[in-house]
């Protein structure tokens, strides 16, 4: 939604002729905007450059850095050296965490589409009076603390949690099913936490869906499946794509959910990064991993923006 509101209006052009009054107005606008930009550059954008710089320094023995150029951190993202004979091999630990992050984020996104699409459709086909209430019910979890929601899921699936307790008291299982600290737990938690982010943009597209087109499809003897795949899906595709991005990006950088539900063994990229600034004490490696994560996110965003621009072009 708002996060993706990057594209300038296509028919916007830079000013060519500006009168003195206009120039004064523009200067006033800059004065108004400058303080916010200053804070953002100071505490959001600027420090990213420092991260980039740090990724090329040498690690200090007790955290921090030694101010000396080194490619070691970037080398370590992908490779490792054997301590004894110095032979090189792939850094399996890092690569498997990277792979797990991508895999689980994709899985989460797919599941979120599978659940979020019917939910958005359901809301959009309610009578207008009750529609806002359903939307409110989706928005409430979206604004409640992510930590608390993750914690709620944890309480449900713990070995001593309500699911296992109920199943055991009913005699269905003899010992608790180990759900915590698995990839399953992380994926479940992320779907739970990010589902509203999928429903909101799909609903926004769905709300504008003209059901007369659906009706026309049926009138032309299209089957239900054909109407669904040839009429409904194409019309709400922008919402699905936006939802895909809105879920995939935070899932890829997730920290809280995998930390609580995955534990120390099932780390994701966010946890690996944090580890380098905590016990790992390898700031340059942490910086290089951060830049890697950022690069993947940026690639996803660029693909998205290109795609929507092309789609906009298709429809005139």
């Amino acid at each position: 939604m708002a996060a993706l509101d990057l594209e300038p209006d296509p028919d916007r052009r830079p000013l060519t002729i500006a009168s003195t009054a206009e120039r004064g107005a523009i200067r006033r606008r800059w004065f108004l905007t400058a303080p916010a930009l200053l804070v953002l550059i100071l505490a959001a954008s600027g420090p990213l450059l420092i991260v980039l710089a740090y990724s090329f320094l040498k690690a200090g023995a007790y955290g921090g850095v030694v101010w000396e150029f080194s490619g070691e951190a970037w080398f370590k993202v992908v490779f490792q050296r054997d301590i004894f004979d110095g032979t090189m091999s792939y850094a399996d630990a890092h690569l498997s965490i990277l792979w797990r992050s991508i895999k689980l984020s994709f899985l989460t996104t797919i599941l979120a589409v599978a659940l979020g699409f019917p939910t958005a459709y359901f809301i959009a086909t309610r009578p207008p009076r009750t529609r806002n209430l359903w939307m409110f019910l989706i928005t409430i979890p979206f604004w409640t603390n992510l930590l608390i929601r993750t914690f709620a899921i944890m309480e449900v699936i713990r070995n001593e949690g309500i699911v296992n307790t109920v199943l055991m008291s009913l005699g269905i299982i003899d010992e608790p099913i180990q759900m915590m600290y698995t990839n399953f737990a992380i994926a479940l938690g992320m779907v739970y936490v990010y589902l509203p982010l999928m429903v909101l943009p799909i609903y926004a597209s769905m709300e504008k869906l003209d059901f007369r087109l659906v009706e026309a499809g049926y009138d032309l003897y299209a089957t239900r499946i054909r109407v669904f795949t040839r009429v409904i899906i194409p019309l709400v595709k922008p919402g699905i794509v936006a939802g895909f991005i809105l879920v995939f990006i935070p899932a890829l950088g997730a920290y809280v959910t995998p930390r609580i539900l995955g534990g120390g063994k099932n780390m994701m990229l966010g946890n690996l990064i944090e580890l380098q600034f905590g016990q790992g004490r390898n700031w340059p490696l942490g910086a290089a991993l951060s830049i890697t994560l950022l690069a993947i996110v940026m690639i996803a965003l660029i693909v998205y923006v290109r795609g929507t621009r092309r789609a906009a072009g298709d429809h005139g």
Partner: protein
Amino acid sequence: MARGARLRRPFSIKRQPGFTAIALFCFFALYAPIIVLVVYSFNSGNSIAVWEGFSWRWYRSAWENDLVIEAATRSLIIALCASLAATTLATMAALGTTRTRPYRGLTVVYALINQPLMVPEIVTGVALLIFFALIKVATGYTGLLYLITAHTAFCIPFAYLPIRARLEGMDLALETAAADLYATPWRAFRRVTLPLLWPGIMAGGVLAFVISLDDVVITELVKSAGQETLPTYMLGQLRRVITPEINAISSVLLAISVLIVSVFFAFSRKGD
């Protein structure tokens, strides 16, 4: 034609098999864990799975826990300062970027404002950790200002969006009329623009407050020793034996969020 077809049609065009079931399941699944969490905050026993009867015990225990109160106070101070600062800056920025012919650099401004929404929190957190570590070494200051600055920055887009939305829907004619009647620009702003804009500003401020209050990742990375906020305190507690005290704290935070979001909805609806 369509009318005739509708009469003959034996099924609803809007129905998709299974969708209602999936949707209702989603609503159930979204709320059930939260409800369980709240219910067990009233458990009189030590467990978060075995119900032993109703009691306010854990709320009392949280209230009497100095660490909790201290963290909660710190959270509130940070959220108040950050949301006030972010809303002020965002209001100015919104006035500077809307209702105008696009000018050079506007795209960059949008990109900067939206940036905290796009960059993963963990990356921003790491970046601030490094940056603030440098400043700490240089100045020796280790107070709350680091957290407040960080929170202000990532709250700006959340405050900015509702304010901009409100401004874009506003009629310039009223301000032009004020100017025609010899109101000074400041007076026109104070008496015309600001009152009209107020619901947007409130909505933005409220949103920023919730976002700041709930933040875990950036706070966890940026905080100096002993600067726990409520969420980071809770995250730390999860490593230990879990008692319903955590549920009680969560329920209070939950109630605050729901209340604030309802206020937000009330403000953003106003005047529509």
